[in-house]
């Protein structure tokens, strides 16, 4: 097939539709949000166009700093947990029989059909004292008494990792299926045990895929606002929870918008840093 640069305006035709959709549904709302973040708030749920920095100034407090810090920490923790479990899991999945692969992939995809609310309530039941998994541990003799595992940080982490895990596997799967299986076999003939071959050959060869997965799960986890409320204590609430609270319950749109803009900037900066670090290592 011959490829040449577009000559006339008409050659760009196929791009108009996606560009239009992107402008209408992403650029316009995002620009509106940035604009609102500088508006003046009126008591009673309204705002007037202005250019004030109050909303950002209010945000620069220890309290919001801590919440932002916790949100980023939680998102990173979920991303790492998903990748640590997901890479070996997907590696084994990609090497199992076709039937096993299909069964697992269907099960994982069906998790995607569950809403965040359902996942949250399911886990809060599982972690409850009366009907939770601790009853099973008592029955097995592992624990003396059933106890509630929620609200806690562990419960929030578990549910968020559960929700993000199918995405992790779906991003890793194509790369792992395409990975030359003789790479780890070659490492074994050269004297590496199967575990050593996995860590010295398979993982480094997949570095870019793993980095991309980390970033995707990180951003996905950053947007979670229901699970921290359902399964965590107030100190486990993320910035997304506070944004929802300000936007919906406090009717303070400008402040919510300012926080959202800040969250986007911080996460973009972190992603940029991760990609940059990846490039540096590759160039070495």
């Amino acid at each position, binding site marked *: 097939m011959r490829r040449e640069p577009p000559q006339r305006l008409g050659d760009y035709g196929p791009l108009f539709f996606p560009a239009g959709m992107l402008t209408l549904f992403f650029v316009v709302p995002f620009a509106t949000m940035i604009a609102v973040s500088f508006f003046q708030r009126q008591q009673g749920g309204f705002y007037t166009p202005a250019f004030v920095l109050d909303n950002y100034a209010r945000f620069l407090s220890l309290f919001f700093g801590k919440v932002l810090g916790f949100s980023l920490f939680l998102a990173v923790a979920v991303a790492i947990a998903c990748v640590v479990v997901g890479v070996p899991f997907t590696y084994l999945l990609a090497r199992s029989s076709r039937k096993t692969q299909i069964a697992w992939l269907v099960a994982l995809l069906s998790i995607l059909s569950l809403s965040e609310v359902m996942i949250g309530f399911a886990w809060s039941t599982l972690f409850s004292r009366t009907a939770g998994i601790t009853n099973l541990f008592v029955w097995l003799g592992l624990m003396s008494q059933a106890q509630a595992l929620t609200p806690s940080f562990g419960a929030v982490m578990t549910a968020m990792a559960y929700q993000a895990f199918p995405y992790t596997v779906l991003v890793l799967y194509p790369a792992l299926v395409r990975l030359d299986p003789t790479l780890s076999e070659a490492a074994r*003939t*050269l*004297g*590496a045990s199967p575990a*050593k071959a996995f860590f010295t050959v398979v993982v480094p*060869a997949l570095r870019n895929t793993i980095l991309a997965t980390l970033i995707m799960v990180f951003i996905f986890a950053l947007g979670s606002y229901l699970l921290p409320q359902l399964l965590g204590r107030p100190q486990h609430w993320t910035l997304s929870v506070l944004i929802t609270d300000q936007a919906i319950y406090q009717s303070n749109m400008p402040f919510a918008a300012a926080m959202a803009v800040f969250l986007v900037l911080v996460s973009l900066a972190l992603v940029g840093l991760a990609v940059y670090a990846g490039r540096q290592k590759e160039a070495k």
Partner: protein
Amino acid sequence: MSGLILEHVTKQFGTFTAVNDVSLAVADGSFVCLLGPSGCGKTTLMRMIAGLDLPTGGSIRLSGADITQVPTHRRDLGMVFQSLALFPHLTVGENIAYSLRIRGADKDAQKKRVDELLAMIHLPGFADRSVNKLSGGQRQRVAIARALAISPKLFLLDEPLSALDAKLREAMQVELRQLQQRLGITTIVVTHDQREAMTMADTVVVMNGGEIRQAAAPVDIYRRPADSFVADFIGQTNLLPFETDSTGRAAVLGTSIEGLAPLTGPEKGLLSVRPEDVQLAPAGNGLIPGTVTFVRDLGGTIETFVEAGGQQVIAVSSPRNRPAVHVGQTVGIKLDPATSVVLAK
């Protein structure tokens, strides 16, 4: 006893038998080619020698020790894969040093050995290059150097040259054979290319249907094939049916032949005659009559296709001995009894 010894090695995948009761002794320092069509079990056999697949029956011994169940990474071998399997995230030097690093060799020893090996494969100064920027032939050499880094007891190569173009492949065959002779390392190569096997091997092992059909020196495989599969697979041959009458006299395509190797066994069978051993002469004089159907002049050789008794016979000659024939001409086919091989049908 030293060397590599396979005894009754069998591999079954479910109900399918990939390798069936294979016994083979490979002497120390010899070069063996496992040759056969795809699906004949040669790669499975090599994978069992490497420990990547475990046999379902039989035993494998290396230098006297039973290694049948020893995991791959404790077998001290070097293997070159068909895909080469160079590690994309490591440089040429790091690839070659991988087996040394895994065994905890110190940095200086690693560097010294890498430089030695790079000199051996004629790529000095390549240590810091990326493996992704090498040509096919260079990648091939790096894979060979990586496999030889620990001076393994056994050097295995699975279709190592199949990714190279024809000219480079022939050059690498010669180079590989010279390298093996210099190092004196026991080497096994899997290939489906009989020219490759004939070029390199001390012993060619012809396999089909998971079994060894013949294991012998290249010339013997060519000159004295054990059965019609080997005769047909190695080079070009004419397989002509013959019958012996009550007096033990053989007739090929209805014409009796004198002086054929003693026929004690079969009364019916096949005669393998290499095309270069077929001579064409004017019809008559007790020769097999046939009609020329096609002449292929390749410059270096001339192939004449002759139809005789419903069978196609090919004769190859050099330009110096060009037969004076044309399509449609009736000729006599002269077989040399000394070079014709009697095969059971």
